[in-house]
């Protein structure tokens, strides 16, 4: 490395060391100086960040292209909503029901999809995603169809004396979702660094070699889909709680495609990158939704433009704008 390169690398390290606490402080203070409406949007964005984080374990870490991740996000939310409003069970068991339903579905999808490799895996996840979306659309007695399900949860008691209020623009909801995202980031980092994570990265690097070394590649793929599915379900549950209702939009194929775009924009495998990209993009889409009816068209155009012009993500864009390569991240 040239002396200039070393200086630049040190500069990047210093910048990152300063940026991270600044970002955390900014996020921590945000609900105190933005409007309640924006607080609500930010809460939703954090939940979608958790969703994108869970998908990064699948796409970024393991290299699996799944087009059914929003299915798990939505099924988690629906599981909780159905538990509370249709089965009449209380809050925490309903949350567990949602997570269990998503994990079980992730296992089923994984079980059948890993039987086919490469493009077959992708198409199987597309098939499952479409099938669940169709069922959610027509089984209105269970899912509420187009109207969705109104949750009617306004207060959740975390610990004695510590309540989270799920009302529009609530600060406690914002912090609860942010805390869950932080926990999930920590857990994901540990997971990726663990021997299990090493095996996942090995599968991404060279699937054939991983299986020749004795790793049961199919089982790892199913397991990572189940773990990420449970994380996605938590994201879906938090998103639904912050919005106050569950709708078919949460499990559409469209959302599965969006999370792929966010992951590419943020940098696959970086964990934090997709979270930040998801937050930015979902706030942008929220804005588009408010100003135009054509936001689905816009999502299509964004998807296409990202593939054509930003395949290296926002990191790649920054590198190009700065005219040099930013230090590679671990």
């Amino acid at each position, binding site marked *: 490395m040239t002396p200039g390169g070393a200086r630049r690398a040190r500069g990047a390290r210093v910048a990152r060391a300063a940026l991270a606490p600044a970002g955390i402080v900014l996020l921590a203070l945000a609900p105190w100086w933005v409007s309640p409406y924006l607080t609500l949007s930010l809460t939703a964005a954090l939940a979608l960040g958790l969703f994108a984080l869970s998908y990064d374990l699948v796409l970024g870490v393991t290299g699996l292209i799944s087009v059914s991740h929003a299915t798990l996000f939505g099924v988690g939310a629906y599981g909780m909503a159905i538990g509370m409003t249709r089965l009449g069970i209380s809050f925490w068991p309903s949350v567990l029901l949602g997570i269990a339903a998503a994990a079980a579905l992730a296992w089923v999808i994984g079980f059948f999809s890993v*039987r*086919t490799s490469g493009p077959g895996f992708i198409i199987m996840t597309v098939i499952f995603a479409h099938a669940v979306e169709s069922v959610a659309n027509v089984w209105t007695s269970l899912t509420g169809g187009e109207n969705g399900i109104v949750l009617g949860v306004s207060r959740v008691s975390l610990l004695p004396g510590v309540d989270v209020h799920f009302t529009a623009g609530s600060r406690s909801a914002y912090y609860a979702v942010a805390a869950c995202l932080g926990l999930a980031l920590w857990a994901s980092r540990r997971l990726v660094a663990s021997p299990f994570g090493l095996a996942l990265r090995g599968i991404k690097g060279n699937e054939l070699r991983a299986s020749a070394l004795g790793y049961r590649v199919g089982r790892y793929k199913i397991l990572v889909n189940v773990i990420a599915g449970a994380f996605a379900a938590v994201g879906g549950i938090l998103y639904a709680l912050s919005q106050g209702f569950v709708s078919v939009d949460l499990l559409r194929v469209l959302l599965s495609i969006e999370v*792929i775009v966010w992951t590419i924009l943020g940098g696959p495998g970086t964990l934090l990158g997709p979270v930040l990209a998801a937050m930015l993009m979902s706030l942008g889409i929220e804005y588009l939704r408010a100003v135009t009816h054509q936001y689905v068209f816009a*999502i299509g155009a964004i*998807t296409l433009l990202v593939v054509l012009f930003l*395949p290296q993500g926002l990191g790649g864009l920054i590198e190009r704008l700065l005219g040099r390569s930013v230090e590679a991240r671990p």
Partner: protein
Amino acid sequence: MTADVLLLQLANGLSFGVIFALIASGITLMWGIMDFINMSHGELYMLGAYGVWLALVVGVGNFWLALPLAVVGVVVIGLGLRATVLRPIFDRPPLHTLLATYGVGLILQQGVLAIFGPFAKEIALPVTGLVVLGPFRYPAYRLVVIAVGLVLIAAAGLLIQRSTYGIWIRAVAQDRAMTAALGVPVSRVYTVVFGLGSALAAIGGALAAPLFGIGPTMGSEVILLAFIVVMIGGLGNYLGSVIGGVLIGEVIAVGAIWLQPTQAYLAALGVLLVLLLLRPAGLLRGAR
């Protein structure tokens, strides 16, 4: 249920199956030869239906004149998309082509929605009347769909099997680099494959239009079944997609005697899952 109902639905299943086969064979061809999953294939089918409707509205008097016009229109759109969107990302990983074609599909769907509105269009049956078929009388147009569809599928199959382009297509599918080294114009082969796949989907949409009506989401509704058919037939297997199409058509039609449409879709998914357990490499793999 009487035997008549079952026979009637078996015949209906064949007409559904031919339409599914027309869509699925294009998807399987594009994968087998160009290594990419066309997520916008359902929209090409939808455009075929709209094309026929549009041609009839602007004054083309005859359905059988409108159909080739619609197919040509869709092929032009398809090749335009290939030239502008897909060609630049042709050597990218499947993830990128998947996203790009999905984006194109959304744009086409939303574009049609914005131009023609959300309401379903209908066109009259181009062939009316009933044909006496053993114990019951059967709508003649459905028989025409079956005949025309099967003939065109067979023609496309023969093109792949027998013509010079067919030999090139199969050579490219086996080894792209080697084929290119031997002087085959690979890019032109891709154009032919993409055009052929687009044409088959458009024909499917045009034939389906008088039966099922026309709407902006008809493509995304049929794509689930089309992908199930592709997987049953074995990805990249042309004959497999035809047999799979007829099989799923029969499952949907016979299932419709007892089931709601979505339940029939799930039955089709069930058939796929059982087959995946029994024959993970596709229906015909190993039998060829």
